């Protein structure tokens, strides 16, 4: 009987386990996680930290979910290495496990700031439910905050500070939030959202070091200009380091992420990878790419499982990723790869409405919508169809996008 081993019980690992059981009713399936609880909703833990959502609805699977499906779940089990020749997974203190096919779905861990006192009490990183519980508890007692990391995860800390009544400074290295995807016009709307919840963006800043009291608790952040920002709460979200240390020596090709093809196969036989940590071949983009979103991780897990069960290249990953920010009065949606491409178009429609579309070789590869998300379906459709539309930016920038107004596709 085939033994499938999945390392990681996040959304990618869990969705793979579910699909494997459907496709391979008789197989042995083991899911290993170093967390102490089965799959939960990682994209809702910020709502718990904000103090808005109780714990129970965030849990997705009870342990009984695995029992019902005859899936072996190993909680609190850290994988230390994998021998891909002998096909054995080694764990810290739960012994060894042989596999026929292996899925690596171990995601990432937030990167620490490489500055003095970055591990002081009161400085938070945000990835797990446990982190969220700690953040919530501490945020409820805090008055002043500092946030570092001008991207999609940093803004969650801004929202936590806003919701928990912490007066915070958001220290950014450049002149705006998420400068790789937003122009000054788009970013200004986001800065307005932050100010509305009591978080002040500070530009051309960052952290040179943190100061602490005698008990080792953070008291201030000092930026490279020498400006000092008092805080009893700090949130750091400067990026993710992928959890691949245990693969050292396993022969897997890595390039800031595990390299996989569109079937989620690594370069090593019978080893697949899925979720945040992959650098996958994006069939729509025509090159290797990365996604860091829930929907994409779930779909990659499903695709990996389909191909593992078929022992074949049965289905390829073809997906337009999206990522929302829901913390402000206006909606925000980033889709595809908004920071890539060779051309772009953008327009501001009002104080809370802005749109940017990124193109590569004339095709849409991603974008950002603020305020009015109604064009998302049309843009995602054009991405899937891989239509050349960069020469028709006016149609795409109309407030209401009507695909019928696009000139018919030329026969190549």
């Amino acid at each position, binding site marked *: 009987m085939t033994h499938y081993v999945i390392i990681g019980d996040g959304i990618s690992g869990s969705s793979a386990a579910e699909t494997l059981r459907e496709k391979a009713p008789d197989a042995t399936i083991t899911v290993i996680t170093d967390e102490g609880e089965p799959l939960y*909703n990682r994209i809702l833990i910020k709502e718990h930290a904000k103090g808005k959502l109780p714990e129970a609805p965030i849990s997705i699977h009870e342990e009984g979910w695995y029992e019902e499906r005859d899936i072996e779940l190993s909680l609190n089990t850290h994988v230390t290495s994998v021998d891909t020749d002998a096909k054995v997974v080694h764990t810290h203190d739960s012994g060894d496990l042989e596999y026929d096919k292996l899925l690596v779905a171990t995601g990432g861990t937030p990167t620490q700031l490489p500055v003095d006192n970055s591990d002081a009490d009161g400085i938070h990183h945000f990835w797990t439910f446990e982190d969220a519980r700690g953040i919530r508890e501490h945020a409820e007692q805090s008055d002043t905050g500092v946030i570092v990391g001008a991207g999609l995860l940093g803004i969650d800390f801004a929202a936590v500070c806003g919701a928990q009544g912490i007066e915070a400074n958001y220290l950014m290295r450049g002149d705006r939030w998420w400068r790789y995807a937003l122009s000054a016009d788009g970013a200004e709307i986001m800065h307005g959202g932050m100010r509305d919840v009591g978080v002040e963006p500070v530009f051309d800043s960052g952290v040179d070091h943190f100061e602490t009291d005698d008990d080792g608790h953070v008291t201030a952040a000092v930026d490279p200009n020498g400006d000092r920002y008092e805080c009893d709460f700090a949130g750091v979200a400067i990026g993710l380091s992928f959890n691949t240390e245990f693969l050292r020596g396993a022969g897997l090709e890595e390039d800031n992420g595990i390299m996989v093809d569109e079937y989620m196969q690594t370069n090593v036989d019978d080893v697949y990878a899925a979720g945040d940590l992959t650098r996958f071949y994006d069939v729509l983009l025509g090159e290797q790419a990365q996604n860091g979103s829930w929907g994409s991780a779930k779909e990659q897990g499903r695709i990996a499982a389909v191909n593992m069960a078929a022992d074949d290249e049965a289905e390829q990953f073809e997906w337009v990723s999206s990522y929302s920010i829901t913390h402000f009065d206006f909606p925000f949606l980033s889709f595809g790869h908004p920071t890539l491409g060779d051309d772009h178009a953008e327009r501001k429609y009002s104080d809370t409405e802005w749109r940017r579309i990124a193109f590569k070789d004339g095709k849409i590869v991603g974008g950002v919508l603020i305020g009015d*998300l*109604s064009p998302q379906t049309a843009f995602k459709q054009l991405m899937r169809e891989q239509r050349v539309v960069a020469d028709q930016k006016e149609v795409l920038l109309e407030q209401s996008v009507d695909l019928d107004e696009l000139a018919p596709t030329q026969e190549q």
Partner: protein
Amino acid sequence: MHMATSELRGSSLKLTRIESVSPDATVRHVDQLETETLDTFYAAVEGNRPITAAEMGLDAGDVIVGTEYYRVDLM
């Protein structure tokens, strides 16, 4: 707890803004919705218009986390 989809298919649903969530609610973030469902959701939020269950792909009682929290209710 959830009604069979067939029972709901013809019926209309509406979104009700809520301030707090009961521990036994099924809660989803907008990024868990399919593209079309997301479209319908935002159209319903903007226009306050009723939606059919089939169109929405959601069950009565579900809570959706967008810029506000919304509960899906039977009309």
